[in-house]
């Protein structure tokens, strides 16, 4: 299996995630789509790591996973806070910062 195939899958997943961020209005699903994009980047990193026979790319992917876990934690905390304040769970309705 050549590396190009993995990169093609990675590009497709990234585009699906980006489209999902644009289409969906529920912040939970937007977070899931961010996960998709980060995972696409991970797949590309690990593909390149295999391409060079060097494990540094895998370290990079693990650090990306740590950052994704942090992002999920804070994002879900925000969503729970929104729910506690009886705010609508909808990214289009959260427009207080819009001038």
């Amino acid at each position, binding site marked *: 299996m050549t*590396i190009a195939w993995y990169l093609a899958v990675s590009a497709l997943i990234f585009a699906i995630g980006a*489209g*999902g961020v644009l*289409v969906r209005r529920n912040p939970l699903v937007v977070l899931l789509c961010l996960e*998709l994009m980060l995972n696409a980047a991970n797949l590309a990193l690990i593909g390149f790591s295999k391409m060079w026979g060097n494990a540094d790319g895998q*370290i990079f992917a693990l650090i990306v996973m740590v950052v994704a876990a942090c992002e999920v934690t*804070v994002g*879900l905390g925000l969503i729970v806070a929104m729910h*506690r304040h009886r705010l609508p*769970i909808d990214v289009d309705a959260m427009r207080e910062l819009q001038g």
Partner: protein
Amino acid sequence: MSYIVFFIAALGTLAGAIGVITLKDPFYSVLALVVHLISLAVLFLLLHAEFVAAAQVVVYAGAVMVLYVFVVSYIGGESLTGSGGPGRAGTFGAFACGGALVIELFIAVLGSGLKAIGRGGAHVAPGFGNPEQIGTLFLTRFLAPFEIASFLLLLAAVGAVTLARRRGGLEDGVEDPPTISAVDFLRPRPYYTGTQHETLGHAETLSATQAVERQERAT
């Protein structure tokens, strides 16, 4: 053999990804993401990244997804369906953006003229990507990123607790629980503080001068 595994896993990842963005109920979106993550772990295994694949299944498909499921069930289904979609034009625009992104990425990656992506990659040693190698790298060459990552996790945990705790957080008008600061240790304390007298409930909180006055009166 590896071709068959690759195509099955790639189809699984793509189907999971499409399921995440198309399913209406967020709960099913989370389950689709679990399918996606496990198929992706298979792809990682095909790329000789054993430890990353294991971490993917344990950390992502295990811990992070449990967090998601908890939040979805905490918030409840009816408040999550949202008020309609972005409309036909919006959806079309989003898919156009996604398609343009795919084409651009294909041109950027596959048309880059890198000869090595047309091959199966370098020939790797048997121990490539196993926990031993990853651990050695993390504790030698990548020690600083490792420590910074742990600090980042700590910060995220504190931030999440602060945001989501029952009182306070973003709320106004809620009294903070009493706190203690370093200055409190320097202030004069009431006379009986920390004695058995206070424990028995006779703590008339006297200041030190009042206590001295009372003693003088007694003698």
